[in-house]
């Protein structure tokens, strides 16, 4: 078991190495010379001398592998370089926006959990009833609705027609009023996925023989469902919640951009628009590290949540 965890942890290294190559080479996937493109302004093409000076300053005159190794070496020492555009340290910008993303994700997660777990349980208990059908339909709609569209519907209703909430922005350090709409938008698909998983996991648990044992003891249905079935059914759901936190990052891209939330998703979109390559490289690598670490934690925690696997861990 320890061996599994060790192997699982070590495997992160090649994956992240691969990610570093991918994110680094983004610059060279694009057609054209990055220095020239970056220096091109509305006033016209830059002078060859200016381009050359920029290349030397940014180290773009070196062979690619030298650039890569230097970049990687710097990153391993915590230096993500400077933004091509603002010339601010990349890491500071990433870290600051990641905090905003984390804040939004946690609130989204909270909303999605308080909606989805009860709905999933309800659907499972009322299996094959109209309630169940409605929950399943709602969950399907939830994963099918484009979040950028949903965002506009919410803005239209709550900000424009009802004028209850601000259209967009971070407000006073990301206050609740500014957070509600983006958090709902971001949490919808996660809620939908969790509802479905909770439902099927609960149905699976309720069909087990130990449920009959629990009923045969004379336990009330509340205890049978709320204790015996739920304890088993929650194991995959809790695991999935960890993964969902990672998938929330996906939704953050569009959601943050629309709501002007200063998170890492919006940062990446803007950096791509501006061809701010050091920022793109740094953010992609940073997100990958977060994502991979999260998945690792989920994997390991899974083995400890389930006593059957936990037991094997002792061997």
């Amino acid at each position, binding site marked *: 078991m320890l061996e599994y965890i060790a192997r699982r942890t070590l495997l992160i290294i090649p994956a992240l190495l691969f990610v570093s190559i*991918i994110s680094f080479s983004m610059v060279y996937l694009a057609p054209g010379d990055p220095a020239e493109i970056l220096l091109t302004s509305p006033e016209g093409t830059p002078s060859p001398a200016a381009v050359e000076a920029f290349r030397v300053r940014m180290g773009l005159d070196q062979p690619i592998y030298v650039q890569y190794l230097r970049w990687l070496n710097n990153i391993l020492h915590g230096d993500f370089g400077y933004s091509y555009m603002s010339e601010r340290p990349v890491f500071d910008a990433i870290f600051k926006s990641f905090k905003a993303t984390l804040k939004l994700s946690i609130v989204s997660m909270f909303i999605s959990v308080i909606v989805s777990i009860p709905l999933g349980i309800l659907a499972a208990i009322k299996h094959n009833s109209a309630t169940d*059908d409605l929950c399943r339909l709602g969950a399907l709609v939830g994963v099918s609705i484009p979040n950028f569209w949903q965002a506009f519907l919410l803005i239209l209703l709550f900000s424009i027609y009802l004028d209850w909430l601000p259209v967009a922005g971070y407000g006073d350090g990301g206050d609740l009023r500014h957070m509600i709409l983006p958090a709902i938008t971001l949490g919808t698909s996660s809620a939908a996925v969790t509802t479905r998983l909770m439902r099927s996991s609960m149905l699976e648990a309720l069909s087990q023989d130990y449920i009959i044992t629990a009923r045969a003891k004379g336990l009330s249905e509340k205890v049978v469902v709320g204790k015996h079935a739920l304890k088993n059914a929650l194991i995959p759901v809790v695991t999935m919640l960890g993964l969902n936190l990672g998938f929330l990052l996906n939704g953050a*891209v569009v959601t943050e951009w629309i709501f002007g939330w200063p998170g890492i998703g919006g940062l990446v979109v803007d950096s791509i628009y501006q061809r701010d390559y050091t920022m793109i490289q740094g953010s992609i690598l940073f997100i990958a590290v977060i994502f991979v670490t999260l998945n690792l934690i989920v994997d390991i925690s899974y083995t400890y949540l389930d006593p059957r696997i936990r037991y094997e861990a002792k061997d």
Partner: protein
Amino acid sequence: MRLRTKNRNILIGMSIVMCLVFIAVFAPLVAPHDPTEADLGARLEPPSKEYPFGTDHLGRCILSRVIYGTRVSLLVGVTVISASLLIGLVLGTASGYFGGLVDEVIMRLVDGFLAIPSMFLALALAGALGPGLTNMMIALIAVEWTSYARVVRGSILSIKDQEFVVASRGLGAGDVYILTRHILPNIISPVIVIATMGVGYAILAAAGLSFLGFGVQPPTPEWGSMLDSGRLFLRKAPHIMVFPGLAIMITVLAFNFLGDGLRDEMDPRFRKEIPH
């Protein structure tokens, strides 16, 4: 009699998909207007008899654009998933069947791709390659193929040591024969289920990329980019946003219904049991 849910889901999903395919194929016959024809005298008009879904900021018929948009979305969805499926099938099969170093290399590659959240990877690739339909599809394939490779590999691992495969090998059957005759037919059903849902997901992701300006470029009618251009007129003409978004949702929903129904149909766990 009440239809069983699984059949009902397949039925609903299938009918909507059929309708969409029909609309896409016969778009010129179904659409009331030319989707790119701008009527500058009728800009941002709300739905009317002439323009059932209204017009956009250039006075183009939104209904016609939504109808033509079906073509791009279905094309992207089906192309991306077919290509991902093919890559996943080849690499997943090689990985699961041969094992050893081949498996190790392929799985590390998969790990690498999966290490970046899919929307970020697609966005970064689409951004790096530059806007356009083909580049967007390449970016989406790069994101999608890994799940097929994993599912195929997993299914093959679970099946390759089963008795009928071992017996076949004992009778002198070769690798190709065993793969095509015994293994592939057995892994096809989980693959069909995730591919069906994958089409919906690819359409959703493509619309997102186009919305951000990394996919299909105007004036080609595409749902995501229609939403993007409607963004600025949200207060004045909300109908521009409503219909393309609805079209995306219904299309994705249809594929999800279909995939959901197929899964229930193929998953023996949902069959009824009587105590014995």
